[in-house]
């Protein structure tokens, strides 16, 4: 995978384009999981990029790769909470509100949303992110996290209710098909 200094290979192009065009978006996405901690979010993004591009270097486009990277961000996050108890404690220290956040940690994300997400368990947060930010169905969320459909539904239901209460929002039907969203066109390389 080394870069020899000659003509860039295609995966190099895709990775470079992804970093250039979507890095802020990926970090913002990761921050939803890390309770607003920018440093941890950047770590998640890095780890996800590595994971994805080591396993699969044949992407049709940077946008194609981005989907994999977003999935990997959630997986890396969940893996980080699934390891040994001690690592989990250390990890929690770095992402729980008990830690004193850096100056960058509390900005850039609506504070009420950040606080609301922080009150969820890591798994609940992952479910929320996959369901509402990636518009996955309950079944797809379950498959992504390697849990049963019923479990995913329970996580989503509980977490949605708590978030809706905290944020004063209306609870959506978690079984409804994902909404079709119109996104701003992405800058092409």
């Amino acid at each position: 995978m080394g870069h020899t200094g000659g003509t860039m290979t295609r995966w190099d192009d895709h990775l470079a384009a992804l970093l250039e065009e979507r890095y802020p978006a990926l970090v913002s996405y990761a921050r939803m999981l890390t309770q607003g901690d920018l440093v941890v979010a950047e770590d998640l993004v890095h780890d996800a990029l590595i994971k994805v591009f080591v396993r699969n270097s044949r992407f049709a486009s940077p946008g194609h790769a981005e989907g994999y990277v977003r999935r990997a961000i959630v997986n890396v996050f969940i893996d980080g909470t699934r390891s040994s108890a001690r690592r989990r404690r250390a990890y929690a220290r770095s992402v729980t509100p008990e830690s004193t956040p850096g100056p960058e940690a509390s900005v850039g994300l609506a504070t009420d949303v950040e606080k609301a997400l922080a009150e969820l368990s890591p798994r609940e947060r992952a479910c929320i992110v996959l369901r509402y930010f990636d518009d996955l169905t309950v079944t797809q969320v379950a498959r992504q996290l390697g849990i049963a459909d019923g479990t995913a539904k329970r996580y989503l239901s509980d977490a949605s209710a708590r978030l809706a209460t905290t944020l004063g929002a209306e609870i959506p039907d978690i079984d409804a098909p994902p909404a079709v969203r119109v996104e701003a066109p992405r800058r092409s390389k």
Partner: protein
Amino acid sequence: MNTLDAVLHDALAQSERFHAGLAAPSVRSTIARKRVVRRAAMSSAATVGAVGIGAGGFALSAGFAPSDLAAVGSSMSITPSGSTSPAPSGPTSPTPSASPTPTATAAADPAALAASQRAFCQQLPLIVAWSEAAGTTATELSFTYSSPGDPISIGCLLSNATLSDPMSTQWIYFIFGSTPGSDFTRQRCVDDKGTMTFETNAPTEQSAYHSRSGIACLDGVLVIANEAVQFDANFTLTDAQMKAPAEASVAMADKARLLAP
């Protein structure tokens, strides 16, 4: 009333707008990090009681004894300053051909020693310096480094009293921005109670080169690790100095080389 998904999407959009100026790491630095993470995954899988650093960062084992570090010393070119000599007051020029530490050469079983070296080295991307003296109160430590093929020179300055209890598991790591011409250093300190302090001299700036070094005081041993330097690459430590009480023992590695897995 807005639906929950609309509220969350608005928050994400707001976050993306805020981070729009966030500089992405280079492909090169991302690739370099890959090697580190791969090694970390290998080592952390075999580590009992590892202390995780960051979200997906490498793991540093706390389950070893200072003697393990002394053993590692024999595999590197070490310039010990002596256990009773005062700490150097100025830059140290490590001697490449210096002898191993006496404690290392006194190890009994060569095979066990090699295994110990290997096991410990796999815990860390790179070890460049340590102090063996229990009771050391490191108040300031600075170093710069460079490695062949990677002309980046990075300075590090630790000026913190959090190493005052050398028997605790304290971890301090630094994130450096080393883009030539930039003046960006982020420092984060996490102590054994989870207390974290974070400083930056450029809060809104992101470095294009993302690397991380660490200093840990484990079981009375000061360990410095660096995860940005590629494995199998020689690593030259220059201008290293440590200010500590006179009883401190400081050993500096000159050209350290990580053992192959």
